[in-house]
């Protein structure tokens, strides 16, 4: 009986570890601290500073004139928004070549440095600017409309609660929990990596603000019924009931069947 019980628990332990991993991943995203957004006009010295930073950190892949190489695309016309998004979320500079640049919690550059590089890139060719805080705060917005926009335009990749989802060949749509409104907005207007572009004609700035408001609401309200299990849908629920539900039941059944001391 003991041997049987031990065998039952063994795979359960692995599943438990996976589950723990999921929970830890979820919690891990809550570390990123929000920063103040500033959309100031670029000065010449800022562009100069940005160029220096670009040559030191980005030019290896994107070329000396940001014209692009085999390793990285041209940055002409991507706009300040793209730079602020990619560097502000730690995706750029990439640590190692991969199918997709992952978000990194520890951003290596200060906001001033990022703004400088953004100013430099924006000076090369016109592109989407860093959005005005009016549309990225998620305040004075219609959460319900944002939720509807999110479901139609975003949920198919990012999941109903922004938990992320898989794309083809190892690419993925990242988790959207606890992301700064500015970065959400910038991702929509610039279409980083696999993500399509949602320009202001597609989803208006107000609509984007509504989406941001919805995502902020999700950040706050996920725990109505208890632990959210990563908001991954029925798979994590099934895993939970198999590991914990069945595990607890068997533990009680063993206790019940064992002779008292």
């Amino acid at each position, binding site marked *: 009986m003991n041997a049987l019980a031990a065998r039952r628990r063994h795979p359960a332990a692995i599943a438990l570890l996976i589950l723990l991993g999921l929970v830890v991943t979820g919690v891990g995203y809550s570390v990123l601290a929000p920063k103040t957004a500033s959309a100031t006009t670029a000065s010449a010295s800022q562009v100069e500073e940005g160029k220096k930073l670009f040559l030191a950190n980005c030019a290896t892949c994107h070329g000396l004139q940001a014209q692009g190489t085999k390793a990285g695309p041209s940055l002409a016309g991507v706009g300040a928004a793209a730079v602020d998004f990619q560097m502000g979320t730690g995706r750029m500079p990439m640590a190692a070549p991969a199918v997709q640049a992952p978000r990194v919690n520890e951003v290596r550059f200060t906001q001033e440095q990022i703004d400088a590089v953004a100013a430099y890139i924006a000076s090369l060719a016109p592109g989407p600017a860093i959005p005005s805080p009016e549309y990225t705060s998620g305040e004075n917005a219609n959460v319900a409309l944002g939720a509807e926009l999110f479901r139609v335009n975003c949920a198919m990749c990012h999941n109903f609660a922004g938990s992320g989802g898989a794309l083809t060949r190892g690419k993925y749509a990242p988790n959207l929990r606890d992301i700064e409104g500015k970065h959400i907005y910038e991702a929509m207007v610039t*279409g980083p990596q696999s993500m399509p572009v949602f320009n202001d004609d597609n989803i208006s700035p107000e609509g984007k603000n509504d989406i941001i408001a919805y995502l902020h609401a999700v950040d706050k309200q996920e725990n109505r019924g208890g632990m959210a299990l990563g908001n991954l849908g029925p798979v994590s629920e099934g895993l939970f009931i198999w590991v914990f539900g069945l595990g607890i039941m068997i533990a009680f059944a063993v206790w019940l069947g064992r002779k008292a001391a």
Partner: protein
Amino acid sequence: MSDNGTPHGEVVSHGGDDFGSDAVRLDQGHIEGSGGLPARFENPGLPPHVARMSDLSEKAAKRAEKQVATLFGIASLATIVFIIAYFTVDPEMTAFVPGIGEANPYNVILGVCLGLALLGCGMGAVHWAKTLMPDTEMVEERHPQRASDADRQRAVDNFLQEGGKSQIGRRPLIKFSLAGALALPPLALVLPLVGGLGPLPKDNLSKTIWKKGDRLVRDPELTPIKADQVTIGSVYHVLPANIKESHEVLEDKAKAAVLLMRLDPSIIKSKKEIDWGYDGIVAYSKICTHVGCPVGLYEQQTHHLLCPCHQSTFDVTEDCKVIFGPAKRPLPQLPIEVDSEGYLVARSGFHEAVGPSFWERG
């Protein structure tokens, strides 16, 4: 297999022998009984009973009694807390709950109280049974499942002889008309059910509400789209403008949902795709040709469309043909053009049925 105990009943013991016992070959390497030894070990019988602590000392029994009472006490206490919480805790209140984070503790409090109440009840009863109720194992005899031959005979006799008195065997007219009377009337019950279940599909599955000249509008805002608003890399979730007049919005939407993308025309490999599009803007049905989930996941760099349900992958540069997954057919394309005001409109409806395959889609 193991009826090594005291054989009980005449049917059970070695009933298997009546089938081909000659055919079963005893292996010679396996020694069964020689030199006066039995062929099998004897069942040693129940092991001697081992007394529990509570059987041996009244103190232990008293302790067990207290434990049981404590568990039952927890049950009552938790129920009282449940009742108080039900009325006093505000369901909208939020607080930090360890292990869950910022949450509405209302559900947690109710669940934990109910859980503890029931667990206290149950664990108390089980602990009581384990420690204080008799734990000497009882033996109950089994009897063969089948009835005795006499009983069987009586049942058969009753059926044939007494049943025979109905004269059903002698009166074929009754027999056959009865068969008909039993078989046919249920049809009268089934027919209205099946007949009333739903309309015939006719060619509805092959049609959508897209018509020539319908403007493409954004989902969910239902505003029209100008061609120059669709930049390269964009994806628009689109419905026909006449969805506004529809009386069956969800039903029409379920077939008419469309995905609008703009690609660099130079990378589009299909001539038909370019022809049916407008300057690299192409519109494809969003309903998967596998089982009908919305294929919404557009990767703007690889130009792949992925279905989140079963991972069918379509290549937009090759007229949305399937490059991976369980779907077979490409997504149908909606021919589009631009009207006089610069808005995108349908050039015609879909040229084939959208969505999952069906027998007569042909």
